[in-house]
């Protein structure tokens, strides 16, 4: 496939056509930044295996045919998640925050938590344009959330983000800013869903700043439909003694690309990243992670696991960079994959770059098939083949499920995992 790029003239026209609001300046700055690079293509090392041509083509036709203005419409969708997971839920539809869901949370100010819409204003320079897709996100940004937690504050329940693209808009941008104050704690569950069929492209960015001693537990559970493409960037900056516990579960989406970036700038900080991806059919899931150890001692642990069937194609690229002087760094990363089909493919590359002397680093990757002797053992006890495969794949996945950062979503995630594994095995 030839690389299709996003047409800059269409983007500029669409941005100009948007009514002026609090984010006008952000958009204008981003448009010119985006022009420098456009969409990344497979010629870029970081995008070697993930082709955004289809997403660019969809974006072009959408910018041409329609106003880029998004609306939050009332949608009836998977409301069972908020019922099953006890959290303070906020709904974002087509990139626009549902004001009703937000008004319920005004009282959280008593707990030191403020939540505001980006549409109501944003401090200058707070919207990061770190990479081309962040710039594209900002160029069309019309809303988003800014969550702050005051020093020493905590919240009884997690904040839940129900992020729904309902299908009425082909391309959506979501931007979430999170700041956690000194020795404060926050937990966030993010659930991106599809509210309609057909081709859709969601491009989201989450920016996190953790002050000294702050702690953030973040769980992302992506369960979108098979024609929904996702590009998602999560970047966090960690000050002294702060803790980031990030979980990424990709169960759906035709294409899912995640860039998880942690920047350790304070000693004693700790980063844990655990991810699980299940891919079947022609699904394409690409996880890129990067942890910068700029100072030491500090610790990062990372493990991704994947189960692939059909003609699924997955990518893992985990990079830990230990900068000069970051002595006392302890960094480990691993990626394990289970291939249930001859035609599934994984490209995995854990990487370490070390410029300091006193460090403890490890990395590893495995790709394997189901253990035939274990399969026979289970069948010889009367379990049918699918049930035996379910038990073995579940066991493989449970290594990640056991690292779940937020208890409140365990039950929901466990049953979603079982459902998804059943569907994945059936496909055989």
């Amino acid at each position, binding site marked *: 496939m030839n690389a299709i790029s996003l047409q800059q003239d269409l983007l500029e026209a669409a941005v100009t056509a948007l009514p002026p609001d609090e984010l006008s300046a952000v958009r204008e700055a981003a448009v010119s930044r985006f022009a420098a690079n456009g969409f990344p293509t497979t010629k870029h090392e970081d995008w070697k295996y993930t082709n955004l041509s289809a997403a660019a083509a969809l974006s072009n036709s959408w910018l041409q045919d329609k106003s880029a203005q998004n609306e939050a419409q009332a949608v009836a969708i998977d409301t069972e998640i908020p019922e099953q997971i006890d959290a303070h839920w906020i709904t974002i539809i087509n990139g626009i925050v549902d004001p009703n869901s937000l008004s319920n949370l005004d009282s959280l100010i008593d707990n030191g938590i403020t939540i505001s819409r980006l549409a109501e204003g944003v401090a200058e320079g707070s919207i990061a344009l770190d990479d081309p897709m962040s710039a594209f996100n900002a160029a069309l940004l019309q809303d988003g959330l800014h969550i702050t937690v005051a020093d020493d504050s905590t919240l009884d329940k997690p904040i839940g983000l129900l992020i729904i693209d309902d299908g009425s808009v082909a391309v959506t941008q979501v931007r979430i800013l999170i700041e956690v104050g000194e020795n404060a704690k926050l937990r966030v569950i993010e659930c991106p869903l599809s509210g309609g069929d057909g081709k859709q492209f969601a491009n989201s960015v989450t920016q996190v700043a953790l002050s000294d001693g702050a702690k953030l537990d973040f769980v992302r559970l992506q369960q979108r439909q098979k024609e929904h493409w996702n590009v998602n960037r999560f970047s966090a900056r960690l000050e002294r003694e702060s803790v980031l516990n990030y979980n990424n579960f990709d169960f759906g989406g035709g294409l899912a690309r995640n860039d998880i970036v942690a920047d350790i700038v304070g000693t004693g900080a700790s980063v844990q990243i655990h991810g699980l991806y299940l891919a079947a059919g022609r699904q394409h899931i690409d996880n890129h992670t990067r942890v910068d150890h700029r100072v030491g001692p500090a610790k990062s642990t990372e493990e991704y696991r994947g189960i692939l069937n059909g003609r699924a194609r997955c990518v893992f690229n985990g990079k830990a960079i230990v900068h000069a002087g970051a002595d006392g760094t302890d960094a480990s990363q691993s990626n394990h994959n289970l291939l249930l089909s001859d035609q599934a493919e994984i490209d995995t590359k854990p990487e370490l770059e070390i410029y300091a002397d006193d460090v403890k680093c490890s990395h590893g990757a495995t790709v394997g098939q189901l253990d035939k002797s*274990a399969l026979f053992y289970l069948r010889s006890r009367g*379990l049918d083949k699918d*049930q035996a495969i379910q038990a073995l794949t579940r066991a493989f996945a449970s290594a990640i499920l056991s690292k779940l950062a937020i208890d409140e979503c365990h039950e929901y995630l466990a049953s979603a995992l079982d459902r998804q594994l059943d569907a994945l095995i059936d496909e055989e």
Partner: protein
Amino acid sequence: MNMLEIKNLKAGIGDTEILTGLSLSVKPGEVHAIMGPNGSGKSTLALVIAGHEDYEVYEGTVEFFGKNLLDLEPEERAREGIFLGFQYPVEIPGVNNAYLLKAAVNAKRKYEGLGEVDAFEFLKIARETMAMLDMDPSFLKRGVNEGFSGGEKKRNEILQMAVLKPRLAILDETDSGLDIDALKAVANGINALRHPERSMVLVTHYQRMLDYVEPDFVHVLSQGKIVRSGDKSLALQLEERGYDWVRQAANA
């Protein structure tokens, strides 16, 4: 009707024929010991009866209560009431013992048209059986055979057998690698399950297991077929005279 009827069984892996025309009949309630030197085909016989897909059957028949066993999947054979005690029980981290036991019991009950097992009753039976086998109840929560010692793995096989109550148990070298205490515990477990409707085939290299579990018949396997059958005294003769004696007899 015989429970198990094997006639002229020829089987192996790929082009390598391991069983070269083996016949065996087992009636309900009988305990048969199959002995033989390494490489004589003992484990192959056990795995072919259980339905391991690595083995190919070239010729002959295997019937279980008149039903052609070779047409059935391994799980169907299990639900019909055949249990294989593995020589090398597989470690399955992440799948816990209690899950496996319960799933196995329920698979069989479903096949028999019964509802799922009562969880309380199931736990009670599992705990009682574990006490008999001198197993710690915490084993239920651990991954299947994960980090178990050799003796613990074999006890776990007997536990599964006791909970599943098969009609035919084939125990492949269940005695190997056991110290005397473990051997006694395992033998107790086997003896407790002897029943006029339940048969057992003990595959073993050594006679010592048979001091504790007394067989009705002893067969000697050599080069893929049974070359001599007798009562339990045959096992003692073998112990005295060694396998060369039967090999010579077979070649004569």
